[in-house]
């Protein structure tokens, strides 16, 4: 019910590789030429490619949790990040629907031949929401604060390349040059979601070492300035946040109307999904990006004149998987675990389990069919990197039995026993707050009962679970979910590299414990510095093949992203990348007068 998405926190920062598309550059070029004479003082607008809409109106969106901070430097939780997208803007933005990078505050950018230096030119005439101009100094200030070791901003490490940080300097009046410490294929994606901060508001606090205490949720609206489509108007703790249109926003539509269209956006907080759904259905909120399959089918059952716009975007980047404890436990004193090690850490055992699990059943029963069965750790929702190279062997209990028999695990009556005669049984730990994972576990439990394996389930509170998996390593098997923030494989590095902290099954290895882990290390390191996209994809496909052969974790399913929007809303651009709907708020508009609250 609460924190139903355990994946909170396992949000991987988006990184990726993509050069500006030809079209974008052409458009940007046109735009630099066009507006100078036409609008005089007006900024060098980014022109929206969406249909022209009508201004006005108020939109209500419900957030699952209350944002924790208004300061982008502090934003760790999903809600704060969503709010950040309304209030602030970045230099280069990942366009969520296409998963590609696009120009934002930086009007254009170029890459040096060695791939180590990027030059970004700012749009002319940019202004913060309080009317103050945005200059190169603000950009430099933002990065200075972000990279300052003394500030300890949690987002700092996102900029780390090969252990070192990039350096910035001003080039001329309107450009900055970013020097990377090493070649980095997806460098443009680094800039996404780095909000450019107003120096005039924050510099004093930064100098006195108190910048992280600024812009808390209690801060006055007048204190906050940004370059996002909206600005803060009012905050009622625990109830709602009200945003008004930023009159200095830097986008316009093709008819010349300055965006955003909406006058006001209200964020309400619905910690429980029931109230969220009830509100949406009652028309009290207008966007719903976390629909469950049941919610989806209940909305689609409404009469046509009441039915909202509904879309099944297919599998998202979220995936659930089962894995077994592969840590070297010698000398750990966990005797119960040590006794099971011989089969628990055998790849044939994992294969047998994988063969016996009814993944299609999970997708059908737990997600009412609104989920896709996974064959590797790359979800089909990842359009750029899903290779389809690995295929899942068909479910076969007989084959699973054969595998187990080959390992020396034999059926005695109804019970599978190991060579020492003790029954084969293990405990699956999962997030207690995630009812979907509890149901998955119940299905797996029933499936494995057919093999004679007794599975116990231990729902744990989320932080206790993570503590067990990553620190104390006192567990046998666990179900976790990952939700990648970005599609680029670089996001997977901490999980795939054998010395990674997120190498769930055996984290922080000094030396790769197995040959195949060493091979993955090599492939992943090779792809990151490679500018050639085709070779990167080949390398990554190889990694996917190794994973599905060795099964360090059993990928189960990837739920579909189901969204709903009010039927009179236009320019709704949903994406499988989070946030699924509100990234395009600046272009959304109300089609009919009567739905303009």
């Amino acid at each position, binding site marked *: *019910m*609460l*924190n139903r998405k355990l994946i*909170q*926190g*396992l*949000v*991987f*920062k988006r990184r990726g590789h993509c050069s500006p598309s030809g079209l974008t550059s052409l458009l940007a070029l046109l735009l630099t030429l066009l507006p100078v004479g036409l609008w005089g003082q007006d900024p060098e607008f980014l022109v929206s490619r969406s249909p022209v809409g009508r201004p006005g109106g108020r939109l*209500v969106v419900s957030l699952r949790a209350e944002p*924790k*901070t208004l*300061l982008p430097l*502090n934003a*760790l*939780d999903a809600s704060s990040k969503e709010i950040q997208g309304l209030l602030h803007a970045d230099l280069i933005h990942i366009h969520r629907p296409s998963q590609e990078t696009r120009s934002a505050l930086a009007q254009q950018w170029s890459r040096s031949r060695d791939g180590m230096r990027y030059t970004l030119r700012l749009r002319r005439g940019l202004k913060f929401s309080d009317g103050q101009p945005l200059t190169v100094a603000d950009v430099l200030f933002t990065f200075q604060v972000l990279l300052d*070791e003394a500030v*300890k901003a*949690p987002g*700092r*490490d*996102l900029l*780390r390349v090969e252990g070192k940080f990039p350096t910035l300097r001003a080039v001329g009046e309107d450009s900055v040059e970013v020097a990377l410490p090493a070649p980095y294929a997806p460098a443009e994606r680094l800039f996404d979601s780095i909000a450019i901060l107003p120096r005039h508001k924050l510099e004093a606090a930064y100098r006195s070492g108190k910048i*992280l*205490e600024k812009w*808390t*949720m*209690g801060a006055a609206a007048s204190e906050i300035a940004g370059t996002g489509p909206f600005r803060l108007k009012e905050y*009622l*703790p*625990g*109830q*709602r946040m009200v945003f008004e249109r930023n009159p200095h926003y830097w986008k316009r539509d093709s008819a010349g109307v300055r965006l955003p269209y909406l006058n006001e956006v209200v964020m*309400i*907080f*619905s*910690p*429980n999904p*029931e*109230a969220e759904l*009830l509100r949406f259905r*009652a028309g*009290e*909120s207008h966007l719903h990006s976390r629909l469950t399959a049941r919610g989806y089918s209940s909305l689609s059952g409404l009469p046509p004149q009441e039915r909202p716009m509904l879309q099944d975007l297919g599998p998202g980047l979220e995936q659930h998987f089962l894995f077994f404890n592969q840590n070297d436990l010698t000398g750990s004193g966990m005797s119960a675990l040590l006794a099971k090690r011989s089969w628990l850490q055998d790849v044939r055992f994992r294969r047998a389990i994988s063969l016996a699990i009814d993944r299609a059943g999970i997708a059908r029963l737990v997600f009412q069919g609104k989920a896709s069965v996974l064959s590797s750790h790359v979800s089909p929702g990842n359009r750029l990197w899903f290779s389809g190279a690995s295929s899942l062997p068909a479910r076969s209990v007989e084959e699973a039995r054969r595998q187990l028999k080959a390992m020396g695990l034999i059926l005695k009556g109804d019970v599978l026993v190991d060579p020492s005669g003790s029954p084969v049984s293990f405990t699956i730990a999962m997030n207690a707050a995630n009812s979907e994972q509890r149901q998955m576990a119940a299905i797996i439990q029933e499936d494995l009962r057919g093999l004679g394996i007794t599975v116990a389930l231990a729902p744990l*509170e*989320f*932080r*206790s679970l*993570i*503590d*067990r998996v*990553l620190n*104390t390593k006192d567990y046998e098997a666990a179900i976790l979910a990952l939700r990648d923030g970005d599609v680029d494989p670089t*996001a997977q*590095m*901490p*999980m795939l590299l054998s010395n990674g*902290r*997120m190498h769930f099954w055996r984290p922080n290895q000094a030396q790769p414990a197995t040959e195949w882990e060493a091979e993955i290390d090599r492939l992943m390191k090779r792809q990151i510095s490679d500018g050639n996209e085709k070779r990167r994809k080949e390398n990554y496909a190889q990694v996917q093949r190794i994973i599905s052969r060795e099964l360090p974790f059993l990928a189960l399913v990837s739920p579909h992203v189901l969204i709903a929007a009010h039927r009179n809303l236009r320019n709704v651009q949903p994406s499988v990348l989070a946030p699924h709907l509100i990234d395009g708020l600046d272009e959304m508009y109300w089609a009919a007068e009567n739905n303009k*609250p």
Partner: protein
Amino acid sequence: MPATQTSERVPGWVSVVLSRSLQAAVTLGLLSFCSFALFEWIPGDFLTETAASPAVSPETLAGLRDRYGLDTPLGIRYASWLEGLTRGQLGPSLSYHRDAMGLLLPRLGATVLLNLTALLVALVVALPLAIFAAQNPESRFAGWVGRGMQASLALPELVLVLALFAVAQAYGVPMPGGAAAPADESWLGGLYSLLTGLATPAIALAAGTAPSYFGHMRAAWSEALAESYVIAARQAGLPPKVVRWRYLFPAAANPMVSLLGGSLGGILSASLLVETVTGWPGLGPLLLEAVFSRDVYVVVGAVMFAASAQMAGNLAADLVILRMDPRIRS
């Protein structure tokens, strides 16, 4: 004699308050320390989840750990918390980056509002029915009301919330819990959204407490009806209205007042679960979130507020009894 009684009573009253406050302070001190110590014991801390995010390096983690003071020994943290308390601070909320006091106060307001509303609803429903039932014990309607009250007592709050949700969805009644966005800027719109948000949790809470008010009031009223001075007053031919308000009501009010004193103590803790389930923006959801995210100062602060209210309520109830019961007074 009355003169000596009052001069005796005031110091007695003061001394009770003083000694109970002292005991309460000791209890609160212990409670806060226990809460801190428990948090130390639970696996995982505020940064466990951050640590699981690959974006954050070990050095940054160490820096954050230092910034939040997570590695400081318990004793020192507790001492500095106490020191902050003297300045009216409850310690920093780790996830909200601000003092827990500023975070808790608006939620306290919401929780108090909900509980007072629920109390009002319960009283408005229960008292007239109780008086009716006491006056007409033989009536069929009174019997059904009594049975209904028993059923309402047996209906768990959570089940009631579920039922209300189901009704709301089946008939399209706009009454999900929690605070909604007002449809327009006018005060009427604000009030409407407030009431629709309050409805579910307040009804759920009131349904649980109304039966006890009903039972006590009915018993007190029928007892008062049997008092000889009431019978005398009625025989003397006083109008029923006068008898009701001048004789019966004061006599029946006594037990009600002490019951109310007791329920005021729970004003910050009685509704936590209902708030969480219905999404009312009170202490409940915040406390749960803080527990799950190990936001220790917020939890300790919330616990302190709830416990203080509880103790103050107990004390108030005792004082009321002390004042009203002549036997204890003398």
